[in-house]
C-alpha cells in the first residue's frame, strides 16, 4: 500500500456542493476524488448504501439520483451537485416504514440484510414505473443486485407483495406496530 505524504493530500481543493438528500438540503465540502457513496456514508451519516464491491458490480450502493437508480460508488461527488437523492433512509418518514420494507420483512427476504438497501432502491424504481410488473420485468429490474444469502426467490415474492400493499393504499406502516 502506498503511503501518500500529507502535502499531496492537501493539494486537492475542497469543492462545495449542494444536494438534496431524502428531502433535506445539504451543503457539503468534498474533495474532487470523493464518490457520492463516501459523501452519503461518511459526511452525511447515511449508512444505508453500502460498498459491496466499489466497482458497480453488486448493486449494494444503489441510490436513486434524479429519479434514476445509480451506483453511488461510481458517481463522483462533484457530479451530484444540484441533484436530488433518495436513499433507503428516505423511503418513509420518521417512525414509519415503507410498503417495500414491510413486504421484505413479511416474506423473510431479509437474511443478513447487507444487500437489501440496494434492492429496495431497485424495487422502488420498478414500482414507481408500474404496479403490475411481470416476472420478467421484476427479474430485469433486480438483475443488477447480488445477494450473498441467496434470497432471490423471496425478493420476487416481496416485490409482488409490496405492489399489493401499495395498490391497497397501504404505503406506510407504523414502525412500532411492526416491531411488535
Amino acid at each position: 500500500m502506498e503511503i501518500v505524504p500529507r502535502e499531496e493530500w492537501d493539494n486537492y481543493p475542497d469543492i462545495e456542493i449542494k444536494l438534496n438528500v431524502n428531502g433535506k438540503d445539504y451543503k457539503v465540502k468534498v474533495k474532487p476524488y470523493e464518490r457520492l457513496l463516501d459523501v452519503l456514508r461518511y459526511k452525511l451519516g447515511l449508512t444505508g448504501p453500502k460498498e459491496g464491491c466499489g466497482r458497480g458490480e453488486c448493486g449494494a450502493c444503489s441510490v436513486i439520483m434524479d429519479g434514476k437508480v445509480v451506483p453511488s460508488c461510481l458517481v463522483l461527488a462533484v457530479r451530484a451537485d444540484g441533484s436530488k437523492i433518495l436513499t433507503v433512509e428516505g423511503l418513509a418518514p420518521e417512525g414509519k416504514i415503507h410498503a417495500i420494507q414491510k413486504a421484505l420483512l413479511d416474506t423473510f427476504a431479509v437474511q443478513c440484510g447487507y444487500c437489501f438497501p440496494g434492492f429496495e432502491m431497485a424495487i422502488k424504481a420498478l414500482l414507481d414505473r408500474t404496479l403490475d410488473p411481470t416476472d420478467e420485468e421484476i427479474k430485469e429490474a433486480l438483475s443488477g443486485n447480488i445477494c450473498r444469502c441467496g434470497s432471490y426467490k423471496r425478493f420476487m415474492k416481496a416485490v409482488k407483495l409490496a405492489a399489493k400493499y401499495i395498490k391497497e393504499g397501504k404505503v406506510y406502516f407504523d414502525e412500532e406496530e411492526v416491531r411488535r
Partner: protein
Amino acid sequence: MIPIQRFDVYRPISLNDALEVLRREGSGIRPIAGGTDVLVLMRDGKLGKVGKLLDLWPIRKELSYIKIEDGYVRVGALTTIDELCSSDLVSDRRYAGLMDACRGFGAPFLKNVATVGGNIGTSHPLSDFTVAFLTLDAEVKLVSGSGERYVPLKNFFTGFRTNVRRPDELIAEVRFREAPENSSTAFMKFDRRWAHAMGYILCGGFIEFEGSLIKDVRVAFDSVSNPYPERAFKTEEFLRGKEFSEELIREAYTRVLPTEMRRISDYRASAEYRLDLSKILMKRVLLKIRERVGGE
C-alpha cells in the same frame, strides 16, 4: 475511507471549454463520461497515476441526443444507454439489433450512467454497442479545438483498448446511414448468465433482403483476429448476393469464417470453444434477422 486514488476534477461549462482544456493539457487530463470503466480501471491500479479527470457529464446537454436528419441517424456520445434503449429508435425493426444490445447490457443502474461514447471509447472487445454499431456501418465523430473528423468505426480501433482518438479530441457522436427498408439487425451475446454478463462472444449482424436474396450483409464480432470488435469481411463477401438458406450459413461458418477468425485461449475459454461459439452465434443472429424481415 480508502479513496480509489486522489485526483483533481475539471468540470467544463461547455464543449468548447472542454476542448480548450484538452488542447492545453493533452494527455495530462483524462476524459470521463459515465465512469463505469475509468473508475474501475483506476481502482484496479491499471491507469497508473491519473492527475486530473475531465468530467464530461456537465456537457451532456450538448452531447446527448438522438437525431435523424439528412438520411443519417446521429447519436450523441453522452447519450446514456438507458436513454438510447427507451428511445423510438430501438423500436424500429431495422435497428432491432440495438434493442438486443440494450437488453443484455448489464445492470439497470449501469445503463443509467454508462454512455454510448464511453462504450466505444473504452475500445474493449466486449463492447456491446460497438459490435451493434459496426453492423450499421457507423462512423465516429471526433472533435477537437482545431476541427472535427469522421472515422469509420471499422477503422477506429488500433489494438486492445487503443484507438485513433488523439489526446486533444473527444468522441462527440456516432452516426450511421438510415438502413434500407427490407433490412434488419440482430445482436447476441453468449454468457453463462444473462445479467451482469460481459459475454464470451459477441455477435451482431445486418442483412438487407431482396425477396430471399441477401442483397447486403454485415457480420461483426467482439474479435475476429484482433483484440477489438471487427467485421468478418470474408464471410460477408461469401454471403453477399446469394439466396438465404440454412445450408448457406452453415457453409459460411464451416468453410469461410475459420479462415479469417483467429481466436485466443485464456482463462475464460479456449480458442476452439470461442470459434465454435462464434459459428453458432453467427448462425443464430442471421436466422433471427431472417425472422425479423421474413415474409416480405
